């Protein structure tokens, strides 16, 4: 029960830091003005168009596809593998298990493998391509190592060493219902869960901020409408007032010849 309590506390802590950290970044992004219209053109003219562009970006990684086919392939495998694998994990947190979660269980296994393969591909590229090696900090390698270890330990519990998933589910449901339950003392499981907690803790302080960040990227989320609408930021509004030498609508003193 001690183990269960320790991990329960860690999970709550991780969740609080993840949510509070990401929220505070998102609030900062939302508060900071975009004082000029800077979509990368050709850009959509309407909000619906921007929505569609953002969907293509987030679902299909449209720009990355234009930029690098290998990174796109590995990146897409990793992200969508992870998404489905995460969804598959919902079976631990729901009772009865939602119908669609039951439905995707079989895909989820392959998704985990896709995630692992995608991450491995990205890491190989990071080590082998001289340009990408040059731009990599230790944290860029460690991030891939962390995600690979999470995916790897998860897959091992499926294929090599099963854990007691009945107790695990009791623990997970206990987290949700605030009714703490013991956690199976299984090495592989503890590694898997610890690494997930580490990931939650570092998320708001790392490049993982690209996830919320992409939605705030002015080159992707702005409409191409600068001739129709003015976009004066609050800080810019005050500028012309503090510069009496060029107020708007001043009569000319330069003569018309």
């Amino acid at each position, binding site marked *: 029960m001690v183990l269960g309590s320790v991990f329960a506390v860690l999970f709550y802590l991780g969740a609080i830091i993840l949510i509070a950290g990401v929220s505070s970044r998102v609030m*900062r*992004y939302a508060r*900071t*003005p*975009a*004082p*000029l*219209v*800077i979509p*990368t*053109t*050709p*850009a959509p*003219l309407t909000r619906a168009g921007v929505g569609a562009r953002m969907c293509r970006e987030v679902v299909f*990684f449209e*720009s*990355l596809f234009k*930029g*690098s086919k290998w*990174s796109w392939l590995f*990146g897409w495998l990793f992200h969508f593998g992870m998404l489905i694998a995460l969804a598959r994990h919902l079976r631990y947190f729901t009772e009865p298990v939602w119908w669609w979660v039951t439905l995707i269980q079989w895909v989820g296994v392959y998704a985990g493998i896709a995630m692992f393969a995608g991450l491995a591909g*990205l890491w190989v*590229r*990071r080590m082998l*391509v*001289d*340009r*990408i090696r*040059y*731009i990599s900090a*230790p*944290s*860029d390698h*460690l991030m891939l190592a962390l995600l690979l270890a999470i995916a790897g330990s998860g897959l091992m519990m499926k294929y090599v060493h099963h854990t007691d998933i009945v107790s695990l589910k009791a623990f997970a449901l206990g987290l949700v219902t605030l009714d703490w339950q013991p956690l199976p003392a299984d090495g592989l499981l503890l590694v898997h869960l610890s690494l997930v907690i580490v990931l939650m803790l*570092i998320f708001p*302080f790392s*490049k993982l*901020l*690209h996830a919320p*960040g*992409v939605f*705030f*990227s*002015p*080159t*992707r989320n702005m409409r191409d409408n*600068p*001739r129709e609408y*003015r976009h004066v*930021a609050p*800080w*810019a509004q005050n*500028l012309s007032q503090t*510069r009496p030498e*060029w107020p*708007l609508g001043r009569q*000319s003193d*330069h003569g*018309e*010849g």
Partner: protein
Amino acid sequence: MAKVEFETPPLPDQLSIPAVLPGAMAHSRPFVAKPEHQQPLGFPGELVDNWQKVALDKMDELLGRYRSLQVFLDACVKCGACTDKCHYYLGTGDPKNMPVARQDLLRKVYRRYFTVAGKWFPRLVGAVELSEEVINDWYSYYHQCSECRRCSVYCPYGIDTAEITMAGREILASIGVGQKYSNEIIGKVHTIGNNLGLPEPALANTLEGLEEEVEEDISVSVKFPLDQQGADVLLVPPSADFFAEPHVDGLIGYAKVFHQAGISWTLSSYASEAANFGIFIGNYENMQKVAQRIRQAALDLGVKRIVVGECGHAWRVAYSFWNTLIGPFDFLDPHYPAPQHICEFTHDLLYQGGLKLDREANDDKVVTFHDSCNVSRGSRLGSTPGGQFSIPRDLIRAACTHFVDMAPETIHEHTFCCGGGGGLLTDDLLELRVKGALPRAQALRQVIEAHGVTHMAAICAICKSQFTKVLPQYGMGMDMVISVHQLIGDALVFESEH
């Protein structure tokens, strides 16, 4: 600074990605602005004593001013998609010319002072202190970016290195280390009204000369009006159009279009410059101040429309920023877009049947078109996205029988910068300019060999000047470069008035 000797790289048959050559362009630095170039723009004359604090305060201020900067510094995952997209990297192999590495010069300082990870674990995340060495790198490599936005097309988060470069340059200028070329020019616009420092009498004289030249050439008295009160259109060209080759033939082309359409127009001696180098140095206030002259001239002259000449970054500022910076344009005729590009203007006339063109006049030419970066990726022409690609080509096809595009991965949104944009069109950066033109030169040579292309048309004053200078280095003629409106002007059919 000593003049740098360099070799023009050989043009490859296929554009290849160079291996990383650290420090290959570390020596490239433009002249630093003198106090007299800095102070009129509101910057300190020389390096301030407490430059570290001033620089970090400025960075803090910019992070609060521009969402782009804040999001872009956080979001990069170092995926590498941009690493082979910059023409300066492709031409030099210097890894700090890879867009992500250029951003990292600023990002690693941002991380050190503005993020938890960088404060506690600087080595882990590649964060560094703001040192003199860092400032030197900033000065060198933020002046090896033409702010062309090509990298932003391929970034999964839309990170636009131009925004980082602008922030880097603004921080540098704010500690007293501005760039001479851009700042001197902005000073001239503030005092005289154009980049060249051309005063009203000289301008009037030039325009008179052009009238005589055209009259002699086609026996039609095409006017080049200056400061004409009550004209319908205020035309704001880049000042290079007044005298530089091949730009001036473009200006003649605009005048012929106005003449044939019978629309009254005027230039302004107060606002005789479309170019706005305020964008290059990333300084909102200077950009606004430069643009403000044009609003003022339009009000004073009582015009109904503002039309902007062939100039790439000027069009980005005009199209994307003017309404915000100096609008609203509620004093202009609402039937026309404000501002309007000369290509939009001519295109409208063409499709209303208002122009008579004879393609045969250009039958001696096989023409290709260079999409300028700021028009392609930073603005639009016409009413639908992508008009910036179709409208100039429509115009060329209306004036020429033989048109052929360069390779698809080098045109439209993928277009390569000429290598001289973004405030780098100065002889103290000649090596960079020549090497940065390599990708475009390679694509051009391909269509010369495959299709016998004789001319490359452009709608940007910087592109035209840059190509005229650097194409000969790659064995191509400087006279290949031509204005779109020269093609139009040469094809316009006039009944002789004599």
